[in-house]
């Protein structure tokens, strides 16, 4: 080859081949980025401090292979600059490229002997004699012919200085790379010759069919420009393979469809090339042809017979079409991958025999089942990629999402249905088969069904320990990177696995909330003005001040029916109510009773209908505090109250006795008496939040946000929207629900802030815990990033529960003022971002592990060392 333009696929391992002095390094410098080129000389230098130290060669190549491997794993074109004149030097590079499913490409600089000798002589650091160059040349000459056989997918040879000078590199896209094509698409599963169903399906999807003079469908067009993607296995088994091919070929040619190859197309192509005709199975292939070892089975006979009856031109057209099909496509900026049998993430966009194998046959375990069929490895359960993967190949009863992948082969030819997924809408559209065209080897089952003989049941979505543990970074749309440290993940794992509810319910954990900055003087630690000024600084104008209920935080997932729960979450039940750490809020019986009341209230308030959903996720406070924190109250708060009221009166009385004796204990007595009054205030404070409950009697729920419903996260809506819905619930079932009192304030208007502060004073004076100030609009992106979702301002009496009975004593207050809210603010923001991200992922119906990752991360962050008093 002497063309001046060398085509190099984007994902290649480019192996430069040439004797010492042939100009490999110069060539590499001229045509590739410096970081793309790894030279053996450089690696020799790395390991031995001497680029010419031949003794370091073995170590240098270890390093070279290691770096090249890392680059290829990351999908980066890599150039190896070494002589590579001997096959045993090239062989590991070919293997390396294959191991990473990249294409090995050779560029040979076969320059005249004297040129190389001259160049070597010009280099003072080289002391190679001409005999070395001569030997290398001999090796090179022996190699050139066999390079393709060695596995190089492209070989470019440059023989003169002029050719080298004129050469340029053209990087070519991989065949699978259609990232620039963005749809919308209608992705259709295995058709298997079911032309009638295909035509019906296309009609249902809104396509208009073009027919030829004989009335045969030859193209289909969508008025909105949608395109079809065929997932392979268009042929075999069914009644009209030629009809399906005619339509599909027409659409591909017209640009209204794309198609990937299925295993049946691959086999049909081999049969056609082998000259097989549609004779019954068992006939030996015609002699004289090279044996392709094609066994005519699995419905191939029907195809061959049907195609055999078509004109030769059609047959040739089919052969050309089948030959043109690629293994898979990566579409829409990498967001969609289509392949007949699916594709593991590390193989997306790659090219190798292994990639093709996977695309055609999927991953198998190497075992066969009782029907003699290969046991398939459930690669989709392992799938953790961001790209949606659509595929067919394995007939299933219904199309179901498994980790952002979906199998669209719903067994049309076996009497099932022909299905399409509308992308990006994610709707499945199916047409039932007119009849059973071909008896399946085994009965169709749900994709995640149990073994035969057992009712199909949906397995718990599989979570992997690697989804949550170790050092992790989570990308959110709100904060770019949220890091989780391994020790925090470890603590979260313990709680998540031992105490938390089923992760399929546990779609969200509420973020922590920071208090306002500490008042620098006066009698209070927390004051409303600090909240208003903080939000003013964050660029927030209108805020809502919501009464802070003192109970226990609860998240409620309420499903309209157990069937709805099963359909959406894969668990049958009324939903779930859980705590800040994901533990069940109540016992099963009480929890079910609560959820039923909440469900009824949501239905009465019209929330399911309004939001067009069968489930709702609510953020709420459940009261009384004693309902859930009973043990803590007894062991911690009531116990301290008891000890204080046992010790202090006794101390007061001995001090009074001492005073009566004329001893000067007046200061001590005054302090102790004051302490007794503070202890009274303390016990009054916690008792305010305790009352007896019997079953649900006495339990109060104060919802303050409707976090999400089907297909929608509401977390960024204005709080008025949420509170309005909460009020509707309270109006419907006032015995259970408590409305949240609130006032609005404008941070730029001093008088409205003062009015809100007065409101807070009255609220806390009457025993309220305090208030939460939130941006009225919901999510606010200010000049310094997203604003805090809320700041709490707690009342002075309530704070006795937090800082102890005597925190109001001047010297204590002075020390407590030194608390810093910085870490708490940062934590609150990170957890908020993770919570929003979890809701977005839930709304997009992303795989369980993606949602779980966020909820788990919130739990992990909660174990970070931040002053829990804040």
């Amino acid at each position, binding site marked *: 080859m002497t063309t001046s333009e060398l085509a190099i696929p984007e994902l290649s391992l480019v192996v430069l081949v040439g004797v010492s002095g042939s100009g490999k390094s110069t060539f590499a410098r001229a045509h590739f980025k410096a970081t793309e080129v790894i030279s053996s000389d450089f690696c020799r230098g790395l390991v031995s401090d001497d680029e010419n130290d031949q003794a370091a060669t073995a170590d240098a190549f270890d390093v070279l292979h290691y770096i090249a491997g890392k680059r290829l794993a990351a999908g980066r074109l890599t150039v190896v600059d070494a002589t590579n004149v001997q096959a045993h030097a090239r062989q590991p590079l070919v293997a390396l490229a294959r191991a990473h499913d990249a294409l090995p490409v050779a560029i040979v600089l076969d320059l005249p002997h004297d040129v190389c000798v001259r160049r070597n002589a010009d280099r003072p650091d080289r002391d190679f004699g001409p005999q070395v160059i001569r030997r290398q040349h001999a090796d090179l000459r022996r190699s050139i012919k066999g390079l393709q056989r060695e596995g190089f997918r492209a070989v470019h040879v440059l023989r003169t200085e002029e050719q080298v000078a004129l050469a340029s590199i053209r990087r070519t896209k991989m065949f699978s790379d259609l990232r620039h094509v963005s749809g919308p698409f209608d992705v259709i599963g295995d058709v298997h010759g079911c032309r009638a169903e295909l035509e019906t399906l296309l009609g249902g999807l809104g396509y208009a069919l073009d027919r030829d003079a004989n009335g045969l469908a030859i193209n289909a067009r969508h008025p909105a420009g949608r395109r079809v993607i065929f997932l392979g296995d268009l042929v075999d088994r069914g009644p009209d393979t030629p009809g399906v091919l005619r339509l599909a070929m027409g659409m591909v040619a017209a640009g209204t469809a794309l198609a990937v190859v299925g295993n049946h197309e691959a086999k049909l192509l081999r049969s056609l090339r082998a000259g097989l005709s549609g004779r019954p199975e068992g006939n030996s292939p015609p002699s004289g042809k090279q044996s392709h070892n094609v066994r005519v089975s699995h419905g191939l006979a029907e195809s061959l017979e049907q195609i055999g009856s078509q004109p030769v031109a059609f047959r040739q057209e089919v052969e050309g079409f089948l030959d043109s099909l690629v293994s898979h496509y990566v579409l829409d900026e990498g967001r969609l991958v289509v392949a007949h049998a699916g594709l593991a993430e590390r193989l997306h966009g790659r090219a190798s025999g292994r990639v093709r194998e996977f695309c055609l046959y999927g991953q198998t375990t190497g075992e066969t089942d009782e029907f003699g069929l290969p046991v398939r490895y459930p690669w989709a359960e392992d799938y953790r990629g961001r790209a949606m993967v659509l595929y067919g190949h394995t007939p299933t009863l219904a199309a179901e999402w498994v980790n952002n992948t979906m199998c669209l082969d719903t067994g049309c030819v076996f009497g099932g249905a022909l299905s399409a997924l509308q992308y990006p809408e994610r709707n499945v559209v199916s047409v039932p088969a007119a009849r059973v065209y071909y008896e399946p080897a085994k009965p169709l089952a749900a994709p995640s069904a149990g073994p035969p003989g*057992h009712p199909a049941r949906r*397995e*718990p979505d*599989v*979570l992997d*320990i*690697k*989804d*949550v543990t170790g050092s992790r970074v989570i990308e959110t749309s709100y904060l770019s990177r949220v890091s989780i440290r391994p020790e925090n993940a470890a603590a979260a794992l*313990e*709680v998540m*696995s*031992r105490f938390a509810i*089923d992760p399929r319910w546990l779609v969200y954990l509420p973020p*922590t909330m920071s208090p306002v900055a500490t008042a620098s003087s006066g009698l209070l630690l927390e004051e409303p003005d600090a909240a208003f000024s903080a939000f003013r600084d964050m660029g927030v104008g209108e805020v809502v001040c919501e009464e802070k209920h003192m109970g226990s935080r609860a998240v409620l997932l309420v499903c309209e029916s157990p069937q709805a729960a099963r359909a959406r979450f894969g668990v049958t039940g009324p939903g779930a109510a859980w*705590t*800040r*750490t994901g533990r069940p809020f109540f016992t099963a019986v009480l929890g079910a009773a609560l959820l039923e009341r909440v469900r009824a209230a949501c239905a009465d308030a019209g929330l399911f209908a309004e939001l067009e959903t069968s489930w709702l996720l609510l953020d709420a406070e459940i009261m009384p505090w004693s309902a859930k924190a009973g*043990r*803590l109250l*007894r062991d911690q708060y*009531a*116990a*301290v109250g*008891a*000890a*204080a009221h*046992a*010790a*202090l009166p*006794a101390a007061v009385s*001995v001090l009074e*006795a*001492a005073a009566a*004796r004329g*001893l000067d*204990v007046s200061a*001590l007595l005054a*302090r*102790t008496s004051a302490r007794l009054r503070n202890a009274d205030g*303390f*016990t009054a404070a916690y008792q305010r939040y305790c009352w007896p409950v019997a079953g649900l009697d006495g339990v109060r729920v104060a919802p303050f946000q409707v976090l999400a419903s089907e297909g929608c996260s509401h977390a960024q809506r204005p709080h008025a929207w949420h509170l309005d819905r909460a009020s509707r619930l309270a109006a419907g079932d006032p015995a259970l629900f408590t409305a949240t009192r609130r006032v609005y304030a404008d941070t730029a208007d001093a008088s409205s802030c003062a009015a809100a502060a007065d409101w807070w004073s009255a609220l806390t004076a009457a025993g309220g815990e305090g208030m939460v100030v939130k941006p009225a609009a919901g999510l606010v992106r200010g000049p310094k990033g997203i604003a805090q979702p809320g700041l709490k301002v707690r009342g002075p009496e309530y704070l006795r529960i*937090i800082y*102890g*009975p*005597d925190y109001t*004593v001047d*010297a*204590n207050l*002075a*020390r*407590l003022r*030194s608390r810093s809210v910085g870490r708490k603010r940062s934590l609150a923001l990170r957890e908020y971002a993770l919570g929003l991200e979890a809701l977005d992922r839930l709304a997009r119906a992303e795989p369980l592990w993606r949602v779980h990752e966020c909820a788990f991360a919130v739990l992990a962050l*909660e*174990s*970070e*060392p*931040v*002053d*829990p008093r804040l």
Partner: protein
Amino acid sequence: MGTAPASGTRPRESDLSGGLDSRDTWGVLLTITTTRAPATDLGYLLFKHPGKVQSWPVASGQAHVFYPQATEDRCTAALLLEVDPVALVRGKGSPGQHGAGRHNSDGQQRGNEPPGITHYVNDRPYAASSLLAVALKEVFGTALTGRCDARPELAASPIPLEIRVPALRCAGDTDLATSLFAPLGWAVTASPVPMDPPQWGTSRYVDLRLSGTMRLADALNHMYVLLPVLDDAKHYWVTSDEIDKLVRAGAGWLATHPEKALITRRYLAHRRELTVPALARLAEADDLEPEELDNAVPDEGDGDAEPKPVPLAILRREAVLALLRESGARSVGDLGCGDGALTRHLIADKDIDRVVAADVSARALAIAARRLRLERLPEAKRASISLIQSALTYRDERLTSLDAAVLMEVIEHVDDERLPALERAVFGFAAPASVIVTTPNAEHNAVYGMAPGTLRHPDHRWEWTRAQFRRWARRVAVTYGYVVRFEPVGPEAPEAGPPTQLAVFTRTEAAA
């Protein structure tokens, strides 16, 4: 331990500026009364003048001694300890007194722990505890030794004494105060203090009144040792010199005390070297006590209803090891290994050359690592053992390719809704050739005299009858391609069956 507990802590600026101010503290009280005339001689014995009010800074705050009563017939000395609650939470005995932390058994958290374990809402400032014991020693140090130069014969004589501690925490049992003090010759009145509010019942505090005739030094030593024993506080920091202190203070009475074992254990107890602050913080986030989450390894005295000493644990282990031997397994997973009780034997088994011990509890793993002395094993042996954190409701590649897995007394700690996830992770994904599962037989609980519906361990989520266990095991076996057989472990009761039930699952292809 002779250095301050706070010595390893980075001081907070605020603490440095704050310093100890006795005005922000609360009171813990103890009074000592004698009626031996002249009663005011008590002042000589205590080295504290009845006409004065005296104050000393001590590790936890400020101690005051004064006499509310001082007549010829009756003299009462009061020790009022004002504990600084803010400093307590911030992990310092006494800000500004870094050298003062000579007493480590003072109920304080360890110096290197971040804040968050101890609440500001804490009974330490009110209830008599090790803090008071420490103050007692600081203030009445000489009296504790029995020395009294002014009245040597009085110090050596038994005298009528009354002691009152109005708020004393009695961990576990309010009768304990009686069983600890009565054998020493005290008449004991321990009135339970009601909760606040009283409708919540009685608290774990008592108003303790003692009266008896004995040497004052003995009485003080009793208080010095037994106050912390009764209090039994967590986060107790004990070192070898604590043992010396106990020996000194207990001289002459501890050796013959009927509760000697309990006193010694508790005085030197609660060596929670492996605090798990991260887990404790999660408990705090959810209004729980840390023990409610961090309970994977039982604390001493936690209610395990199985009778002790238990040959059952050994029988169970022997049964499991025998079955493993029978299966010929060379690589074995100890899933839910806890503190490594079984792991130790797996490692010692010559026929087993790879052991993967997994537990979700970081504390359990740390204890297991210590008990197994992994770092002392030869390198080759060490390399064959993995001790990993894993949760059986998540699948884990590290648990695949094992010949056998043991879940010994594990499944009953998993909520039944979560069992399918465990089944899938263990039988479906890890899929060892054989799996051995043991679990309590609920029917046998009656033999232990347990009330129906009660469980053998606080963390058990359920306990199954034999029929329930078999139904579960058979379903799992069919679902994941195993055959299962059952074996009893422990002495079988006629109706109730064995105390432990065991299932051996063998993967069908492995069986073929």
